[in-house]
């Protein structure tokens, strides 16, 4: 019998569990995966890169509501038809139709609007030398950009933010106790999405939603109205909290490396894209990408049985010393391998070019206007698992003159 490798156990549901800990570094140095209560945690860069794109692994998220006591309703019906859950032909048909609307050339013309929004939010508190970054920048910035993309009146941003947060409860383990409220939010957003689609059909605008409506009309029947509405709800669900939290995580990461913040401030055109990649690498909002084995297969010495859950640890793989020099430090001049903060394979994040562009614009605006950036000790962070981020992020700084 082959000798079994030594692997470590990681208690990822413990409230004190930290991705950036000696325990996880030790587990990664020990073997390419660790054991957890929910399947295996893939830790190395090499194995994460391979497994992320493996056709033998699927998202495995269809069962999420039923595993937590929700078997029907508006949320469940929507969830089962989102790109996050669909696989195979149906997924690929929709994904293929919507991809081009999110391409860099569609997003590039929006950069100046992103910058104007960032500056207007910063203007509100720059003279105070302090702010609560999560509510005074990250939330309005992320939400209003999504409004811009979909052509939603930006005055409605607080309502959209609230609906997005409510639907976000559908990803929490308390989904069952919140389901009435979540279902109501889906109904409300469905009506809103129907209105948006109708108005874009009557008078097309220069926004992503108009592009998507055209996709449907030109390819008659290929992308149905229902699929378009499901997608709009998905964009609101997946595009707001992620960006909001990634902004907070990025600011926190740079506050620990003032030299790199100053480098970005001195030449934002040169460094803003690198700043985004480095922040995503060392402090990603999605701490792991979940997959499920669709069949039994062999990976290296390990047989992965059908139905096994795999958590691909993003921060851990992207700070693997086997792949990166000086891995835990942001280095805007380093030539780094790609991280997996946006997942990978056919389920690679749809909106990543939007996120990359708007976070880059935000970090450039923030760095050129604030120095001596510090995060307050009273910051309130979400648990360091799944999707993380800051509920409150008090910061202090010196305004640049």
């Amino acid at each position: 019998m082959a000798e079994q490798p030594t692997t470590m156990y990681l208690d990822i549901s413990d409230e004190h569990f930290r991705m950036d800990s000696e325990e996880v570094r030790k587990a990664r140095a020990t073997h390419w995966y660790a054991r957890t209560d929910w399947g295996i945690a893939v830790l190395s860069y090499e194995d994460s890169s391979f497994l992320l794109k493996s056709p033998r692994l699927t998202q495995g998220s269809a069962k999420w509501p039923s595993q937590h006591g929700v078997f029907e309703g508006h949320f469940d019906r929507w969830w089962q038809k989102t790109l996050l859950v669909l696989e195979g032909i149906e997924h690929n048909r929709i994904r293929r139709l919507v991809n081009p609307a999110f391409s860099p050339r569609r997003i590039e013309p929006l950069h100046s609007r992103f910058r104007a929004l960032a500056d207007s939010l910063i203007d509100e508190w720059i003279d105070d030398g302090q702010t609560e970054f999560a509510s005074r920048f990250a939330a309005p910035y992320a939400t209003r950009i999504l409004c811009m993309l979909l052509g939603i009146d930006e005055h409605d941003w607080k309502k959209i933010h609230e609906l997005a947060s409510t639907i976000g409860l559908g990803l929490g383990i308390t989904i069952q106790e919140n389901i009435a409220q979540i279902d109501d939010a889906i109904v409300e957003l469905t009506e809103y999405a129907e209105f948006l689609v109708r108005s874009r059909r009557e008078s097309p605008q220069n926004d992503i939603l108009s592009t998507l409506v055209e996709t449907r009309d030109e390819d008659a029947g290929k992308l149905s109205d229902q699929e378009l509405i499901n997608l709009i709800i998905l964009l609101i669900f997946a595009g707001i909290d992620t960006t909001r939290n990634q902004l907070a995580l990025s600011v926190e990461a740079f506050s620990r490396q003032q030299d790199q913040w100053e480098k970005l401030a001195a030449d934002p055109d040169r460094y803003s894209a690198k700043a985004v990649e480095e922040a995503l690498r060392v402090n990603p909002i999605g701490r792991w990408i979940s997959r499920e084995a669709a069949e039994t297969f062999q990976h290296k010495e390990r047989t992965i049985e059908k139905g096994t859950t795999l958590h691909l640890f993003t921060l851990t793989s992207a700070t693997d010393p086997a792949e990166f020099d000086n891995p835990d430090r942001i280095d805007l001049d380093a030539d780094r391998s790609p991280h997996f903060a946006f997942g990978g394979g056919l389920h690679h994040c749809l909106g990543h070019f939007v996120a990359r562009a708007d976070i880059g614009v935000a970090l450039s605006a923030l760095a050129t206007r604030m120095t001596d950036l510090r995060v307050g000790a009273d910051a309130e962070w979400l648990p360091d698992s799944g999707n993380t981020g800051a509920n409150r992020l008090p910061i202090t700084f010196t305004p640049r003159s």
Partner: protein
Amino acid sequence: MKIFVDRIKCQNHGLCAISAPANFELDTDGELQYHESFDEEHIDDIEDAIDSCPLQAILLNRDAA
């Protein structure tokens, strides 16, 4: 015109293969295989593949014969 894929950038995510299956596919090892030449009828699909690539690793070399 010919298709050129930057193999250093390419991460084999496979989004090109769902946009333009006549020219791009992932083999059984998950590695991208592609045809440099294409029929004019597939140009829209190939432009979608270029737009969709997360690494922006696909180019159309307009000078190639």
